[in-house]
Each structure stands twice: as structure tokens, then as C-alpha cells.
């Protein structure tokens, strides 16, 4: 199993350009998430999905869009990149536990480092 795979690993954009980050998981997980991490900071949730065809906003959704057309893939899009979106982006996935049996355990990808000039 590859787990959670993120592509690309590195990308440099100019302000105003658009791009899409791809996250793929092979664990048949229902939930998928996109986080961003800035230097010295914890992870902040951008968007998440509880299943194919559904998405929801997290803590910092502005400037990003997501799509979950297939269960195994979760795409993060930047329509018009800004320098403030320079960050490391992490995708994660988890299966949904029954209530009372424990909180969901996230499996993370290796990260995608994005620089916006």
C-alpha cells in the first residue's frame, strides 16, 4: 500500500496563476482532508470531505476550492495564487469509526511545498 500520495511535491507559482494539488489514497478511507502548515505553526484545516461528492469548509477555506469526484482522490485548487498561500500543504485521510469506538485516526501524505512569488 502506498498510503496517501500527494503530487506535486514542490511547485513555484507566480501571483495570479492557478494550480491543483492532487491527493490519492489507496486505503478506501471515507474521510479526506487538506491542511496547510506555515513555519513554526501547527496545521490548519482548509477543507475536508466525508465522502465521495461531498466537501466542507475548515478553518481557513478562503482562496481554495476542492473536489472529491472519486473516493480515492481529493483535489485542492488555487484559482488565483497569492503570496499568502506560500505554505506546505498536507493531505490526510481516515476511515470513519463508529461513534464511541474512538476518534478518527489520520494518515498523512508527505506534503506539497508551494511557493507563490
Amino acid at each position: 500500500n502506498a498510503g496517501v500520495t500527494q503530487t506535486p511535491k514542490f511547485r513555484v507559482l507566480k501571483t495570479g496563476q492557478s494550480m491543483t494539488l492532487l491527493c490519492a489514497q489507496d486505503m478506501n478511507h471515507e474521510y479526506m482532508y487538506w491542511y496547510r502548515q506555515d513555519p513554526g505553526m501547527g496545521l490548519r484545516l482548509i477543507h475536508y470531505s466525508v465522502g465521495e461528492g461531498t466537501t466542507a469548509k475548515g478553518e481557513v477555506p478562503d482562496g481554495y476550492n476542492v473536489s472529491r469526484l472519486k473516493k480515492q482522490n481529493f483535489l485542492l485548487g488555487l484559482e488565483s495564487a497569492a503570496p499568502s498561500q506560500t505554505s506546505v500543504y498536507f493531505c490526510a485521510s481516515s476511515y470513519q469509526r463508529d461513534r464511541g469506538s474512538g476518534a478518527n485516526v489520520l494518515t498523512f501524505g508527505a506534503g506539497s511545498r508551494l511557493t507563490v512569488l
Partner: protein
Amino acid sequence: LAKTTQPISMDSYEGQEVNITCSHNNIATNDYITWYQQFPSQGPRFIIQGYKTKVTNEVASLFIPADRKSSTLSLPRVSLSDTAVYYCLVGDQAVDSGNTPLVFGKGTRLSVIA
């Protein structure tokens, strides 16, 4: 969601036991306590999860007092490779609970010194 408070950083010498405490005064009945470890340039990885009393696995132990308002992650005999950021998360994240996914704070940066 229960807010968590943990130390910003800690230092330890190799071979010592390290205890990182997390406060979560408003933990809810259905909430679990989960700890993650993050090495530089990597995504976080799950360490341990518990609800009450003590949980132990091959990596760490998690101590939770009866009132569940705090928890302590214990790393036995740390080595240089344990240098990482450790995150404490509290929640249940059940799909029918209405809760948003668990929130990561800034974590505790553990530095192990030779």
C-alpha cells in the same frame, strides 16, 4: 471542540523519560485524546489514543486522570530520533456529532540532546 493547551517546547537528554502534558478542561463525554508526532519535512503520524486511565503501545504511554481534564504523553528513554513536534488533539469526530474534524494546535517541540 475542546481547546487544548500544551507547552511550546521541551528539552531532554538522551535516555531520559519525557512527559508532555496537555490540558483540556472542557473535554466532552464522547471525546477521545489523540497524540501525533511530526518530524521536520514530514506529515504528522499517529502515536496513541485513549479515553481514560492508561494506554500503552510500543511507542508511548498515555495517562489520563479520572476527571479527563488533562493527559500526559510519556516517551520512555528518548533518543535523538524522538526530536519532533508532538500534537495533542481532543474530540470524537463522529460523522453524526456535528463536530468538524479535529483541530491541530501548535504542538510541543521536543528537542533531545545527546
